[in-house]
């Protein structure tokens, strides 16, 4: 196990810098999630930590040791790839024990460690199968098993769930969280899915355009976003952003209201709009309401409600939960 220190880390391809002055401390045993839209540099940052991409500038310390020029093996990290990257000609057991066989460990030790990992991941019955004979979820578990077997200092996971279907994704999400609790190893997880980030992370690092926008616990990011970008990125359904007279009224360039922070039917001073779409999820009802001058707003109501498309509704934001932003997208203190 080891903590990591990223000091002014940067990455450039030729003259194009894609990551700028990344400063980040990751504590030993922490579960960190890099999240951001496509092209924000999250995977590149992970690959720099893994040793698969050269570091252009700055220092990478793993376990207090400068690791910029160490090979992936010397960094003692393990990585789970989005595409699983299992060796197709090897059986599950051979895949999982490959790193140990490269170290020329005794066969019985390899078998023992592979069996332990397979037990933990419920892969026991599949050890003699080839990856091509497994389902997507099983392959992903083998990829995780391959990483576990090595007992690395740091676990890196690059969008490991994005090839799985929704049901399997949430199941595997829980498994990875449990695995982290059991192993207490430092884990760095890359995803573009903010639900994964919110549900798994000790701390989330939000990246945008090669810069860190904010680092914090899921609830810090949710409640106190450091920018309009973070406010919009974290939370599902997304935060509503309103400009014009509604924002002026609260002294902001942009007013941010989360869908669950609207009260419906709040009287004449509320914002009047027409329902354009209703999504009934059972536990929640999502309304899309077209409010003149504000656009289509998303409203999330707890429980089941009767509104239908075409209904006129009155919305009022809960003022204690609103977010105010400047023209530059910076938050205005309440």
């Amino acid at each position, binding site marked *: 196990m080891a903590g990591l220190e990223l000091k002014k880390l940067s990455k450039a391809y030729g003259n194009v810098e894609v990551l700028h002055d990344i400063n980040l401390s990751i504590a030993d045993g922490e579960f960190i999630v890099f999240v951001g839209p496509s092209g924000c540099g999250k995977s590149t940052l992970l690959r720099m930590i*893994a040793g698969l991409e050269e570091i252009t500038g700055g220092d990478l310390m793993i376990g207090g040791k400068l690791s910029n020029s160490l090979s992936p*093996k010397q960094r003692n990290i393990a*990585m789970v790839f989005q*595409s699983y990257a299992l060796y197709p000609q090897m059986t599950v057991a051979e895949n999982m024990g490959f790193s140990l066989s*490269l*170290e020329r460990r005794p066969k019985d030790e390899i078998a023992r460690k592979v069996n332990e990992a397979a037990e933990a991941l419920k892969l026991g019955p599949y050890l003699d199968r080839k990856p091509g004979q497994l389902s997507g979820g099983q392959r992903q578990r083998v990829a995780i098993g391959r990483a576990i077997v090595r007992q690395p200092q740091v676990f890196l996971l690059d969008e490991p769930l994005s090839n799985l279907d929704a049901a399997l994704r949430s199941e595997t999400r829980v498994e990875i969280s449990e695995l982290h609790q059991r192993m207490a190893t430092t884990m760095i997880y890359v995803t573009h899915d903010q639900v994964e980030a919110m549900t798994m992370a000790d701390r989330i690092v939000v990246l945008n355009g090669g810069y860190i926008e904010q680092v914090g616990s899921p609830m810090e990011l949710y409640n106190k976003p450091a920018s309009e970008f973070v406010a919009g990125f974290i939370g599902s359904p997304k935060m509503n952003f309103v400009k014009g007279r509604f924002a002026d009224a609260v002294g902001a360039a942009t007013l941010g209201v989360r869908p669950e922070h609207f009260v419906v039917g709040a009287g004449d001073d509320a914002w009047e709009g027409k329902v354009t779409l209703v999504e009934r999820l059972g536990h929640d009802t999502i309304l899309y309401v077209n409010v003149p001058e504000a656009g289509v707003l998303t409203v999330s109501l707890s429980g089941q409600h009767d509104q239908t498309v075409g209904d006129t509704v009155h919305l009022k934001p809960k003022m204690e939960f609103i977010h105010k932003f400047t023209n530059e997208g910076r938050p205005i203190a309440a």
Partner: protein
Amino acid sequence: MLGRWILLFILGITAALMAAPLILTVFTSLKPTTELVNPAWYPPIDMTFEHYVRVWTEGGFSRYFFNTLVISVIDAIVMIFIASMAAYAMVFIDFRGKIFLQILFLIGLMIPVTAIVLPLFQIVRSFGLLNTHLGVILADLALAVSVFVFMFTSYFAGVPKALHEAARIDGATEFQIYRRVVMPIATPAVVTTALLEFLWSWNDLLLRLLLMTRDEMRTLSVGLLNFQGTMTRDVTGLSSGTVIMAIPVVLLFLFFQRHFVRGMTSGAVK
């Protein structure tokens, strides 16, 4: 329906044209000399293997066969290693001068053997390798390596980069990745290289004629020339020699046909 018949007819004619020389050669090789007056497409009435025996013993084909086999097998095996390693470096390793090397390989593809046969002769002679198997093998490898580097490169380009990266993370060296991760999944490319290089080496006449003039070093393709003089031609000897020469190649293709087709097409579809 009519289109299907027309297609079958065209395919039938093409197949007959392709197969005819082979069938006629086999017929001729099995005919006693007395039947040679019959038209070539008459099958042998009194079938005999006497020409095969004669060619194999008196014609020196046992020796030629051995020479050809040694050269072709070594050519094929060494080519697999050289071409696959070069292609591995081209695809998976970043190094200075990569583009320059690629251009060199491209030039190697474009220059016909006949254009450089004289300098090649001089080089082989200056190394003292005339009339040796080694001289021919080195020349064969040098002339064909570009083709197989490109073939392996196109095959390796279809191997997910993540596999290479996963192996690096697992602690494998480049050679270990080559040997344990990449080559085991490159069977179609390996089989295609082995077959094609074996075939080219087996059938080549020009280099063998030029670089191996002593009788005991000759290969089958050169040996066949013994049955043909300026004024005369030993048709039965030539035919049975041709069949002897063709048999190993036909057998190899039959055994490895599936792999071969996959190898030839894999680069195109990935």
